[in-house]
Structures are given as C-alpha cells and as structure tokens.
C-alpha cells in the first residue's frame, strides 16, 4: 500500500513536506563540539544525482543513525565521507578541518574508520593480518590483546583466512579492525544486516563500549529496533534528502509512522 504513495513524484513531495514539518528537530540538538560535519552535500553517479543538499553532524561519543529505504543514498553518503566517492559538491569537515583535498587513506589516518556493507574482509589475509593491516592512528587504539580479549573467536581463528569466518564473525572482525586502528569516527554500514539476534546484540554492546571512549558513530541502519536501542539521534534519508532529524525520544514516539514511511 505504501508503495502507491511514492510512485509519483508529486505525492512523494507532499509526503516529505508533511513529514519534515511540525518542528520535528526540536528534540535533536547537536552535541557541543562536532566531530563530523557534512554541509550541503550533493553526490552524483554520472548524470544521476543521488544525494541532494545533505547536512548532518556527529559529535564525539555520539551515535547517530541514517535511516532510509534501499537506494536512499546512505552508502553513497558514507563513501563520500570516506573519500571513496568523489563526484560530490558541498563540504565535509572532521574536527573543523575541510577534507576536500584529502585522499581516502589520509582521511583514515585522520581518524575515520569505515566498516563497509560487505564487511570488507580480505580473503588472502589471515584474521590476524586483517587486524594488523591498517596503521594505528590514535593513542586510544585498542591493543591487539584487548581486541582478542573482547573477541575471543578472533583469537581462536587468528590464522584462518579472513573469509573463512562466518558472517557474524566477519562483522566482528571488521569492527575489531577499526578499533585496533583507533579510529575516532566510525562509519558503520548496516552492521546488523543478515545477522542472528544474539550477534546484533553483541554489536550493540560494542557500540556502547566505544561510545564511552568518546568515539563518534555514524550508523546506517534499516533495523529500527536496533537503531533506537543504540543511538542518540536519527536522520531519515529519502531519495537522497534528509527529510527528518529526530532525537531518540521522538524517534520512539513516532516509530510506527516511520516504519510505514520506510515501507518496513
């Protein structure tokens, strides 16, 4: 049923207008010092515009989600922040520094840690090598012992090829890798997708743990239950535009409405 309302551009616009009206950002004040600030970002693939004037921010120790349907542009937004998608306009700053001229590897060394939607585990590297590949970029980086203590399974399987792990274990490895690196801002692309509830719960624990260390998290999620369990604020993305910006309380209060809107 909800598909009917998004089929034509006309009805979509009305829907967006109604959703973004009524002072909905009241409960979503940004943190005092912003770590990541994306301002007026647009992105293209060739002629096709997939992000339009997106502005979001994340403060240290804050978990912020990007929620939206498939194809809304969430992955493109993360890749643009990482510096892997270059066909963009607008500004992206990290701790006040403009990232425009920085390559992806320089951004990673400046503290951005990316956990891609396919987890990005190397088949030709062992589990231990997957962990040790990136350089340590911050003094708060987890030492290998701590990583192994927190993820005993990675210690057990340390000499296995990375892709011999199960999906859940690969997700742990991808998270562990950016923790070992000491990234200050994590970009997590649908970490809970396709995983068993107990593993999703574990990922929640990890997110809370690093939040306590002042790490900022930009979390792409379609699992609304999981999103509201871990996050402080939420941006709702539709067809490449931010249509809602909600504090967690508002998000919970309007969950039913949002689920319908997302078509979930």
């Amino acid at each position, binding site marked *: 049923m909800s598909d009917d309302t998004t089929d034509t551009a006309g009805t979509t616009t009305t829907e967006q207008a109604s959703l973004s009206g009524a002072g909905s950002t009241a409960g979503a004040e940004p943190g005092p010092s912003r770590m990541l600030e994306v301002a007026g970002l647009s992105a293209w693939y060739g002629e096709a515009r997939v992000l339009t004037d997106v502005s979001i921010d994340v403060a240290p120790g804050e978990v912020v989600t990007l929620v939206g349907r498939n194809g809304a542009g969430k992955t493109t937004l993360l890749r643009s922040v990482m510096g892997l998608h270059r066909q963009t306009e607008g500004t992206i700053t990290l701790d006040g520094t403009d990232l425009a001229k920085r*390559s992806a590897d320089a951004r990673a060394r400046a503290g951005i840690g990316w956990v891609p939607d396919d987890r990005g585990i190397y088949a030709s590297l062992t589990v231990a090598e997957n962990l040790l590949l990136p350089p340590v970029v911050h003094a708060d980086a987890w030492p290998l012992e701590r990583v192994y203590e927190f993820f005993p399974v990675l210690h057990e399987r340390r000499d296995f090829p990375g892709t011999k792990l199960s999906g859940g274990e690969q997700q742990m490895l991808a998270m562990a890798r950016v923790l070992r690196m000491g990234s200050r801002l994590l970009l997590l692309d649908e970490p809970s997708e396709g995983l068993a509830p107990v593993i999703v719960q574990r990922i929640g624990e990890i997110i809370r743990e690093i939040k306590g260390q002042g790490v900022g998290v930009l979390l792409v999620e379609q699992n609304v239950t999981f999103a509201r369990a871990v996050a402080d604020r939420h941006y709702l993305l539709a067809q490449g535009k931010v249509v809602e910006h909600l504090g967690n309380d508002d998000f919970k209060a309007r969950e039913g409405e949002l689920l319908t809107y997302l078509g979930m």
Partner: protein
Amino acid sequence: MSEFIQYTLQGLAAGGFYALSALGLAVIFGVLGVVNFSHGACYMLGAVLSAVLLAELNVGFWAALVIVPILMFGFGVLMERLLVRWLLELDPLYNFLLTFGLTLVIVEAVKQRYGVSGLPYQVPAGLGGQVTVGSVNLSVYAIFACLFSVVVCVAVGLLLTKTRIGMIVRAATESPDRTRALGINVGLWVTPVFGFGIALAGLAGVLAAPTRAITAEMGSNFIIILFAVVVIGGLGSILGAVVAGFLVGLVEAYGIAYAPTYAQIVIFVLMAIVVLVRPSGLFGREEVA
C-alpha cells in the same frame, strides 16, 4: 625413459622463464589493474641487455643476473611514472593499448640498433655441458635455470606472505579502494610494484639468454604463451601464475618432443580445457560478478 626425463627438465627450465614472467604480470595486474602487453618485450630486453653487456662491456652472465633486473626495474619505474600512471583512472583497455604500442616501439628500436639476426650468447663457464645421473645425461644449465627460477619464485612468495610489504600488496591486489580506506597509501606502492614486475620479466630474459636465439622478436610468441599461462593459473592469482608457468613449460616441451606438428596448439588446448572446467583458472577465486 631417459629422453622423457630430458624433455621434462627442458620443460621445467622453460617453465621457469614463464613462471617468473607470469609472476611479474600477476603482481602488476593485481595492484594496478593493468594487463601489461609489453611484458614479452621486457623479457626480450632482459636477454638483449645480457648480450650487449657481454659484447660491449665484457660484463658476464653472473653480473648480468644482478645488473639487468636492476636496469629493468628502472625501466619499469620510468614507464609507470611517464606513461602508465596517466591512464590508470581510465578504462583498463587504455593501458593495454598503451603497452601494446610500447611493445612495437621497443621491438623496432632493438631491430634498428641490433638488426634482426640473433645476438650471440654462450652458456656461462661452469654451467656448460652435461651431467650423467644414472644413465641419463642432463644439461647442467637447464638444471641451474630451473632451480634458480624455483628459488626466486619461493623468495617472492615469502616476500608476499611473510612481510608487511607483501601483506599490503596482497590487500591492494584484492581491493585497492578498501585498502585505501584502511589508511594505506596504495599509490605509494604502485610504482615499485610495476618496476618489480618488469624486473622479473627482465630476469627471465637473462636466464633465457644462453638457451634461446636472442632477437628483437623473441618476446612476441612469449607474451602470447604468457597470457595462456595467466588464464590457466587464474588472473590475479600469484600462486596460479607460478604453477601454470611450470605446467605450460612442461606441456610445451612434451608437445615439441612427441607431437611437433601440434606443439604450438597443445598449450591452447590445455587453456581451453581449463577454462571449460574452471572458468576462473586453476587458482583463481570464483567471483560472483
């Protein structure tokens, strides 16, 4: 029986030339995504340089074994910096065509300078003649060339699997973008990897010099067989390149010995069979496109 053993040795020696060159082709393809058509010409340059060093500077085989790969490394670095680099962002076909054109230039230049007849080169002192093992006479040089190739392949294998540089090269081979996003400046490794790949082709050329006619055209057939090697081993697989190199050397030697009319075809029949049974090659990762 003794003939069979001799053919096997010849095949393994020739296979060593293929294995070393294919290894170079594989690391270049892995890290840069470039199919280097000029690899055969670089192999030829390795052999020609050995002959020229001997004739004009009286530099012998053992010194050439060290000097020529270093010169070829430098040649590779120049080639990457001056030409290949500018096309990396474009469709890989551009670099394939560039290196194809470069091949024509290199071959013509060598013809202009050294003519079309073969340059002379002898088997180095101490490696000539035959040894008798049981009742079989074996060429000392073939044994040497074969062992030397194996040692170099193993050394490169250790470099790739046991060192941090090797780890980075393996990671970049799998996914340059993802590796960049993990804080590694992949661009920094592109030039040395290209030079290294070219140096391996040059090294194969030095090893081949005492056993082949050294002409400007000697790389033309070589590169075609090298492509077959890479397809059989699995494009992008480093172990595959080495194993398939030796395998193709063997098949070619048996072909020449037992079915001379079909010698050129046997390798491509082997390639067709491998592709039919395992499209991604013997050691290639099966990818879902």
